[in-house]
């Protein structure tokens, strides 16, 4: 399955007219949605792998969320916002870095022996290295890891944000974690020499 197949904007985010919002909407938005700005920035930063771009995109997503706020009928405001952030990020990537989105999501990994917890603890102890390893993963793997491990989302929330069926969140995470372990413990020779 190609990532591009799941890229279109969600229905609630497109097509419907934008409302003119009043002070009451504004107050409600401040209360329900704005507190999740950190979550928006975090997801955007990891999807775009760039702090500067992610702030522009987070801002765009937040204002877009506001314009469509009357379409939000309660529920999980963080998941609703992150869905919009994710859509905005993919649209941005499509436009600015289309090559990144061409990775196949269902790529089968060759089974490999589990890495020992000790080796991983050492490898993961280096923030730079951890960042680089995360950034080498395809976006679809990266986003489930970020949502689960940094944002603390439940499987249900991950499913609603990323539009993958809830039944496959667990296996997506399993594959993403395997990829990350591999990226961490099999640093490229170039990287290894830099660290010496």
């Amino acid at each position, binding site marked *: 399955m190609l990532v591009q197949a799941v890229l279109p904007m969600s229905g609630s985010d497109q097509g419907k007219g934008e409302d*003119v*919002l*009043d002070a009451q909407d504004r107050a409600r938005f401040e209360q329900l949605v704005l507190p999740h700005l950190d979550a928006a920035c975090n997801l955007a930063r990891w999807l775009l792998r760039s702090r500067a771009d992610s*702030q522009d995109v987070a801002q765009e997503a937040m204002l877009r969320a506001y314009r469509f706020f009357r379409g939000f009928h309660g529920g999980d405001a963080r998941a609703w916002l992150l869905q919009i952030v994710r859509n905005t990020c993919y649209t941005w990537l499509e436009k600015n870095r289309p090559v990144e989105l061409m990775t196949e999501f269902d790529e089968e990994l060759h089974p490999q022996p589990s890495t*020992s917890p000790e080796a991983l603890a050492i490898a993961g102890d280096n923030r730079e290295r951890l960042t680089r390893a995360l950034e080498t993963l395809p976006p679809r793997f990266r986003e489930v890891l970020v949502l689960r491990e940094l944002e603390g989302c439940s499987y249900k929330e991950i499913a609603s944000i990323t539009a993958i069926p809830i039944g496959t969140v*667990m296996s997506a995470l399993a594959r993403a974690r395997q990829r990350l372990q591999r990226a961490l413990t099999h640093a490229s020779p170039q990287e290894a020499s830099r660290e010496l």
Partner: protein
Amino acid sequence: MSCDFTRTVLHGYLDGELDATGAAEFERHLECCRECTTALGAEESLRSSLQRSGLYENAPIALRKKIRAGLDAATASSRGIRIPAWRLIAVAAAVLVVAGVSWFSWPGPAKDSASTAPFTVAEIIDAHVRSLQPGHLTDVASTDQHTVKPWFNGKLAFVPPVKDFADEGFPLVGGRLDVLGGQNVAALVYSRRKHIINVFVLPTRETDTPIHPPGLRQGYQWRHWRRQGMEYCAISDVSDSDLYELAQLMYQ
């Protein structure tokens, strides 16, 4: 890697997403599968690295400011007009005086004080405490919304919306008639981990409001809001986050 579990169930277990039976089964499996034991250790180590490394990206203050400005521009009433804070406070103070509200009355935010609630905080707390005395909690004790809602029929001049939120962790306990500010109101009773939450409902002509910030007195928290012609006040000794969760469920 030969054990199928290392690539599937182990992750549900790690993430706390298995049900009790599934988790117990996997724990039994762990006792005899070295591969899963090692893999679980590795995943836990990876998780703690990810969470300890300060990878989370917070929004900078400058971005918050930019977004607030963007929201201002997209909001009808505030377009181009910025009301200084002192004026809001002055207006709020004037409204409080005119309304003749006692110091113990509704501590709503300034922007909403133009329409204070028709009852005082003291009355709400009294009603809540009274309900907790033996035999006072419910007039109709039922976890079924289809029993509680019709029960109010004919007893009140309005029909309160009644919904059970057992799936969300707030099972409906029942309903009760109560009196607040000289007015008959519906009291919906929910429970949250053995704590009782009273939600008072009465009709209003005022416009909708968001869920107001919490109030706290004598160890009780309350949340107040108006929605679709009804005035709501939820009060309890549960934490504010729990109370807010229920308020949001009812607000939908």
